[in-house]
């Protein structure tokens, strides 16, 4: 099961009601049309954009969290977003790969914290060697 996360920016000209309807339809379509097993679509609120996109300086962010086993879920979903006029920008990332990496790194950091304390956490390659040279 692959875990994806898609962030969508909607222009501020869209009304609150339309936005809610959009969130609803996205979460339903993800499950029914695009074949996602679980989906969690949330509004992330209105934010000022760091730079103007299509001359809009603010936008509503929508965060879609979904899992799927099908291969074409993301491509289907993205092509739908591309066609939609109320989406000015979107980005999809794979979360499951990162979750694994996160666990591994956390384990490593915990181990290090137990054995050596703060001194050990300075894992700067070659740094330790330099110090020993000084003595």
């Amino acid at each position, binding site marked *: 099961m692959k875990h994806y996360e898609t*962030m969508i*920016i909607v222009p501020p000209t869209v009304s609150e009601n339309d936005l809610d309807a959009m969130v609803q339809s996205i979460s339903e379509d993800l499950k029914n049309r695009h074949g996602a097993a679980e989906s969690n679509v949330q509004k992330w609120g209105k*934010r000022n*954009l*760091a*730079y103007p*996109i299509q001359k809009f300086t603010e*936008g509503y*962010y929508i*965060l879609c969290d979904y899992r799927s086993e099908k291969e074409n879920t993301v491509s289907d979903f993205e092509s739908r977003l591309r066609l939609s006029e109320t989406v000015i*920008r979107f*980005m999809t*990332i794979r979360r499951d790969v*990162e*979750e694994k*990496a*996160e*666990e*591994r*790194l*956390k384990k490593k*950091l*915990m181990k*290090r*914290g137990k054995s050596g304390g*703060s001194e050990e*956490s*300075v*894992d*700067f*390659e*070659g740094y330790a060697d*330099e*110090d020993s*040279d*000084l003595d």
Partner: protein
Amino acid sequence: MPRKNIDKRKKKTFVKKENLFKRKKYCKLCENAIGYVDYKDVNLLQGFLRERAKIVPRRISGACAIHQRQITNAVKRARQIALLPFTTD
């Protein structure tokens, strides 16, 4: 082999100078045991940006290699989705 020795000598003098007035740098993310830098965490990422929204290099931020990579990836993602600027004018 001779090359290695030269390198060592160079390092030594550099470190000695450095120690006179600089504290040892450490990775703040390792310290807090952060396993994953999220692109949505704008406040955290802004700490690793310069005034002109450039990514602070490792030699200055002191971040370890793993975390620096995570930071750069997260910043680049945040830029794509307009959470962070590419540059400030």
